[in-house]
């Protein structure tokens, strides 16, 4: 009995440390890639209805005899506010081409040049 009381007191004295889970915001975006007779296209259905329309279109194309492949892309980003990509080159045309590509992908871009090393450094953030 005394042991039980002691155990009870010990339990009351202990505090359970609740470690709050880090709130990790995971942004998930879905998009579709598909090919029609070998030519690649992209689609960006926003909801179930649009996904249903997309599938209907794929079926209709297949019924026309076109060669169809399609797949859904799930893009997960741990921190939805920050993706940083860098690229370095000694060729200014390649630097501009890379920056343009990233800009078209939705990044904000910058190019800097180091005269001493002759290196162009490109940064893309989104």
């Amino acid at each position: 009995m005394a042991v039980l009381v002691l155990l009870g007191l010990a339990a009351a004295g202990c505090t359970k440390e609740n470690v709050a889970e880090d709130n990790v915001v995971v942004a998930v975006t879905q998009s579709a890639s598909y090919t029609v007779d070998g030519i690649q296209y992209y689609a960006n259905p926003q909801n179930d209805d649009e996904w249903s329309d997309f599938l209907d279109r794929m079926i209709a194309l297949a019924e026309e005899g076109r060669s169809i492949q399609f797949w859904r892309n799930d893009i997960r980003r741990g921190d939805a506010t920050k993706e940083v990509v860098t690229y370095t080159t000694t060729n200014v045309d390649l630097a501009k081409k890379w920056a343009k590509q990233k800009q078209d992908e939705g990044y904000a871009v910058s190019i800097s040049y180091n005269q001493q090393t002759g290196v162009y450094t490109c940064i893309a953030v989104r």
Partner: protein
Amino acid sequence: MKKHNVIFIILCVVAVLVAVLVKRCPRTVPYEQCSEVYKRYSRVEGVRATYVKDYRINDTLTIGVTLLEATDSAGWKYLLQKFNISQEMQTVFEQVDFGVMSWNSHKDNPEVRATTVGECRDVSLTDKDIEICACSFRERKICVFHTQSEEEILAIDNYNYDNMINQTNLLNHEKDKN
């Protein structure tokens, strides 16, 4: 005859003066012809908005440009918030010497980024729906280039990238001098 000559000379002088005045005075674009972006920000406290109708990019191309300058810290904070420029983004680009970045945006909505290639691209966007923005952290300015074709987009991108590279060269020269 003498009187006629005097009148003639006075008229000539007046004509010349008017011509000089017209040439020297800046042209003012009527408010209705200014960009939607200019109209949205022209009355915001802490922000100075300027619209230039024919900003010369190169020998063959002029383009409409809206320039937004923060006149104080509150104005700059406002612009950063409106244009969704996160603190992380500022940190990354301020590490670059001159802190200039550019991005694609939706027409008349430079606050919204536009994605035209890749997995997450917006398939409904055409070249006419895109404008180019550039931001200078050092000078606290955001510039919106009102492009209307693929040719103009490519020209502005090239223009911005060349400016970024040239700015680096200038800063390197300044550092070498010091």
